[in-house]
């Protein structure tokens, strides 16, 4: 079967993973791939854990990525990086935002946040890329809300697609 590439975008509801996914899918469509994407809207948007699956290649059937088969995971938050790690394949790459968002059980003292998330990931991921997206977004764009696009930039570097395509799609899908 022709090769299909699997990507996960994971984060917390409200972080802009959906827009980032839209940009990524637009780029892949521009490059002539068959693309499928799956995410669930509804309750998960209220600060819950969110995931978008993106699959591309010559012909894609299932819109879901299987565990242990993701080529790339783009994690918008460290705890979510840990949660979705089982989807990464052994030789896969993970790009993780150096950001902590405490979930309700941690805020209530019912659970503890794994502050050593990056160390754990470093021991398990062959290629781990850490990005301080909030800082970069503030410095370069003057707006912390552009973190999602900063993170896409880190992903773009690892996908071998011309920068011009990214620029074109971002201009078309993000309000200036």
């Amino acid at each position, binding site marked *: 079967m022709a090769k299909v590439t699997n990507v996960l975008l994971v984060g917390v509801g409200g972080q802009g993973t959906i827009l980032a996914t839209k940009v990524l899918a637009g780029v892949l469509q521009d490059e002539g791939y068959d693309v499928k994407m*799956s995410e669930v809207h509804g309750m998960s948007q209220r600060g819950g854990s969110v995931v978008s699956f993106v699959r591309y290649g010559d012909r894609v059937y299932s819109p879901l990525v299987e565990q242990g088969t993701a080529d790339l995971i783009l994690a918008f938050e460290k705890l979510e990086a840990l949660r979705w790690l*089982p989807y990464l*394949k052994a030789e896969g790459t993970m790009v993780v935002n150096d950001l902590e968002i405490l979930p309700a059980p941690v805020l209530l003292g019912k659970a503890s946040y794994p502050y050593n998330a990056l160390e754990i990931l470093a021991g398990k991921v062959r290629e781990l890329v850490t990005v301080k997206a909030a800082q970069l977004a503030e410095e370069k764009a003057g707006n912390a809300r552009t973190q999602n696009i900063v993170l896409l930039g880190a992903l773009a570097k690892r996908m071998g697609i011309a920068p011009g395509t990214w620029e074109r799609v971002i201009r078309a899908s993000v309000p200036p």
Partner: protein
Amino acid sequence: MKKFLSGDEAIARGAFEYGATFAAAYPGTPSTEIIENILPYKEIYAEWSPNEKVALEVAIGASLAGARSLVAMKHVGVNVAADPLFTAAYTGVNGGLVIVSADEPSLHSSQNEQDNRNFAPFAKIPMLEPSDSQEAKDLVGEAFRISEEYDTPVLLRITTRIAHAKGLVECYERQEVEVKEYKKNAAKYCMVPANARKRRVFVEERTRLLSEFSETFLYNRIEWGDKSIGIITSGISYQYAREVFGAKASYLKLTMTWPLPEKLMREFAEGVEKLYVVEELDPFLENQVKAMGIPVIGKELLPNMFEFTPELLRQKFFGVDPASNPVTEVEIPPRPPVLCAGCPHRPVFYILKKHRVPVMGDIGCYGLGLQPPLEAVDTTVCMGASVGMTHGFQKASAWNGVPRKVVGVIGDSTFFHGGMTGVADMVFNNGSGVIVVLDNRTTAMTGHQPHPGTGITGKGEVTDEIKIEDVVRALGVRDVQIVDSYDLQAVDQAVRHALDFDGPSVVICRRACALLKGLPDLGKAVINQEQCTRCHACLRTGCPALVSHPDKSVTIDTNACNGCFVCGQVCPVGAIEKVGGGERG
């Protein structure tokens, strides 16, 4: 031109391309985006109706007027709309009528899991099931054609992974379809017993004709591969089966799943060595195959609940577990959805918890009020149930000698959907329940759709705003109070008064959803660390903008804070200050 569309967006596009001029819905995950994406088309009249029953009724009326009409709802919405549905099956249509049911295996955002394919044989109407976005669009056209040719409403059944998964869709220009002339025809449209008995016979004959049609319907197709395994499947399950088996199996991909193409199914079964049905939820296809006397493996191998995944098929068919690399070093805390920072429901739940009364909940964001630390909601059943359940709980308690007060909480949109008749019941039958309307000026859960109380239509036109206080007073409620949800003391007093009142009582807690656009800037709450005693009283509001640190100190994330200042009102030492923003609007 190819567009990257979700199943919902593709259905909206299909309504446009295939000449629909009318659409209606009540929002509900995962169906909401269908009408949201139809509303911008100037060629199509579309509306948010107060509930699914009304949405279907207006669509039936539109069909009678000759318009190609589409109505969309989530699976439980079809329960609400079942009454008109079962008789529209008898009257048939004038302009094509398509009913979209968006089911939710795995209950991502629903109170139950149900397989609405069962509605097709139950109501005796044909059903189509797309397996990707392209088919979702194409089948809207097929559904309109079948509807008009066979004089029947058509059920277009999708699931979350069709509704919310995106794929590339070939899009075309709109085909204008002439609006059909309306001809008075009581024998067809007046379902009094004498007429309905005749239409009952027509319905049976129609199903027979549709069974023949199903045999040659192009979207029901055999894909021959290795013939040692044959898989009968439909919808998203077809994609998972193709993903897992590839060319190592043959497929009967069913798209018209009611009535079924029996000859085609027999031909397929004879052509393969071992026959399986791969379908999510109920053994709907499987039971039909078995009724034909064909041996088949289905639910003895695959589960009858929750979504399928390719991993699940690999595991069940081949015993192969996914090659994954889980984190075992630490426990990964769950991240459940929460009421947003500044959510106007939070202060109301905070007060209700203090009063220690049973609280009947309802459907909406405020279902999240069941979670710690608020834990204020006792029940969640269906749209509007809070009101009837409050009345029943209160009445049964009093009748059996344990008089007590009971509170029901219901959102503004849910009140118009299914709450009003419950209030009429409570007044009519001398009830004494307390109904707290959480009026956040929108349908928040599904993404801010307008409703009869907002003064604006789905198309963005200004309209008369129906005031909930006027409605409940007109229904005979004498004790009606209106308070600002953000004002803890006012909410507390109103609830206390209502609990003491002898008779039905309504408290309207009014404050716009904090995520609505264009709200006044309320400033931010900031904790004065020198005054803070680290007592964590503020954390008991459960606001996600409050951040507790390992050293027990608490800070407020100013990016997340929406300035409701509920935390400031619960702080016993006045350590939380308000910075910036105007007066509370």
